[in-house]
């Protein structure tokens, strides 16, 4: 059998023989099972009035909800920027030759990874109980902690500083993943350590750093819901404000959940294209774009392939 013409699941060899491909009945059973369960779920969602879809539709674009989304997105962005910036600093500190600098960074990571972020948020929120008068040791500087630490600042400090601990580990893993020969070649060409880090090491480390950072962003988006406990009116707290008045608990939780899913899905797409960008030069062929993937899937997995007469 030399040249084989493949058409759907029937192939014809060059010598005229018809090659019938193997059938997969178990795959059909599994597919039907999943489809049946999904159908049941849809039926229940459509017929159970307690889902309150009319209420969901009513409040879906409520101004309180939209404002909440704004705060959720803003908080996610600010906390990730704080976390990433501080994370890079901590990662470089952990790779320092100075043992005390290394220990300080490890201690920071150990502390912030070792305590629940909810506890940290409550600590920052109640900072006034610990330091009523903030002076930073500067004579003449007296800041009233009660008015300085707003719920929003407590949220940024709690989530941002906690995120820095995780980001530093991600950045460190990225940096050490780059082959030593790279910084050596860069040094031999006369680049300084800083230039080497910025132009040679970090751009290559990005390939390792981006995927887990995307997960961190999505994680952060959801973690911002924790700050509802310190009365920051983000997405979850905004829905809570509404259902505390009209008692439509489930519909409003659904509104919040649907929005979270929409935003995380958009973030996921962004992450995919960012990964493609930083993978340049490292793959012989870039991974296919989403559209191309769908087309490939349809071409190779077509479950309802129609058998056609073999072509000659």
């Amino acid at each position, binding site marked *: 059998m030399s040249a084989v013409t493949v058409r759907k699941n029937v192939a014809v060899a060059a010598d005229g023989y018809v090659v019938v491909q193997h059938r997969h009945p178990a795959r059909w059973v599994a597919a039907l099972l999943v489809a049946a369960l999904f159908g049941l779920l849809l039926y229940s969602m459509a017929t159970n009035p307690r889902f309150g879809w009319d209420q969901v539709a009513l409040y879906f674009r409520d101004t309180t909800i939209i404002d909440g989304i704004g705060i959720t997105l803003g908080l996610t962005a600010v906390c990730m920027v704080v976390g990433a910036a501080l994370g890079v600093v901590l990662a470089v500190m952990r790779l320092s030759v100075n043992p005390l600098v290394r220990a300080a960074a490890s201690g920071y990571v150990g502390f912030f990874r070792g305590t629940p972020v909810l506890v940290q948020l409550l600590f920052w929120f109640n900072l006034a109980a610990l330091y009523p008068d903030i002076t930073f040791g500067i004579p003449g500087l007296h800041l009233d902690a009660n008015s300085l630490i707003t719920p929003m600042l407590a949220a940024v400090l709690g989530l941002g500083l906690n995120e820095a601990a995780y980001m530093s580990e991600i950045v460190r893993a990225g940096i050490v993943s780059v082959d030593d020969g790279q910084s050596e070649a860069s040094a031999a*060409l006369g680049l300084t350590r800083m230039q080497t880090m910025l132009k040679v090491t970090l751009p290559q480390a990005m390939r390792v750093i981006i995927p887990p950072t995307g997960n961190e962003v999505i994680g952060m988006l959801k973690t911002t819901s924790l700050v509802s406990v310190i009365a920051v009116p983000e997405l979850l707290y905004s829905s809570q404000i509404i259902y505390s008045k009209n008692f439509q608990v489930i519909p409003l939780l659904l509104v919040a959940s649907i929005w979270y899913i929409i935003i995380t899905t958009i973030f996921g797409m962004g992450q995919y294209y960012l990964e493609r960008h930083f993978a340049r*030069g490292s793959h012989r062929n870039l991974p296919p774009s989403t559209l191309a993937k769908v087309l490939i899937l349809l071409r190779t997995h077509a479950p309802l392939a129609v058998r056609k007469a073999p072509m000659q």
Partner: protein
Amino acid sequence: MNTMEKPHVAADPAKNQAMVRAVGVRKSYGSNEVLKGIDLEVQPGEVVCLIGASGSGKSTFLRCINHLEKINGGRLWIEDQMVGYTVKGHKLHEKTHAEICRERANTGMVFQHFNLFPHLTVIENLLLAPKMALGQSPEQSRPRAISLLEQVGLADKVNAYPRHLSGGQQQRVAIARALCMQPKLMLFDEPTSALDPELVGDVLAVMRQLAASGMTMIVVTHEMGFARDVADRVVFMHGGRIIEQGPPSEVLGNPQHERTRAFLASVR
């Protein structure tokens, strides 16, 4: 012999300025002494091949020359500059990182595993160091980079990523990248050891061409044919010491030392 045809071999004795001068260079890793006192002078325009078994210290010595390794004893000079240190009175002051970087920019180095920057295209690989270390704008250094790529036979790969090139092509880009800094001295650390046999020839051809142009070269190599044809001097190292050195016809053709004979018998 090819060496006879080369006009640049005799260094001007009036100048008497060696390109590289090593006096009693020692290097240890912990208690393991890798270099046990290396004395070597390389004249401008000279091509010196360092040969010897792995572990003999030849790569380490090469890396000491541009201060990728700090030496533990002895002195090293490139022209009139001491490598890594400044003498003030009776003290050796470590040079600052910026000074070391500035001096490294004058020495090109080619590695066994090429170490091209995989996230940059071929031309970007060539232009990065001139921009960062010499402050030359890409417009300024680009014509030079293009002509170097033509010389190594890769003018059509300007915008390719290293990953898309064969090993031999990558190594030729690495040579062009080092030359784009317009170095006075080129160090080659086993430049053909990681290549498939059929790709070695192209890289050696580029190195021959470079030697013929008068570049001072120190080459750690296992290519005895290259050493025989191109080197002005072959230096045999064993156990962190120089055992024997001289013109290739003598060291390779009529080795005096028993260890040199044993090594040459093993590589043939």
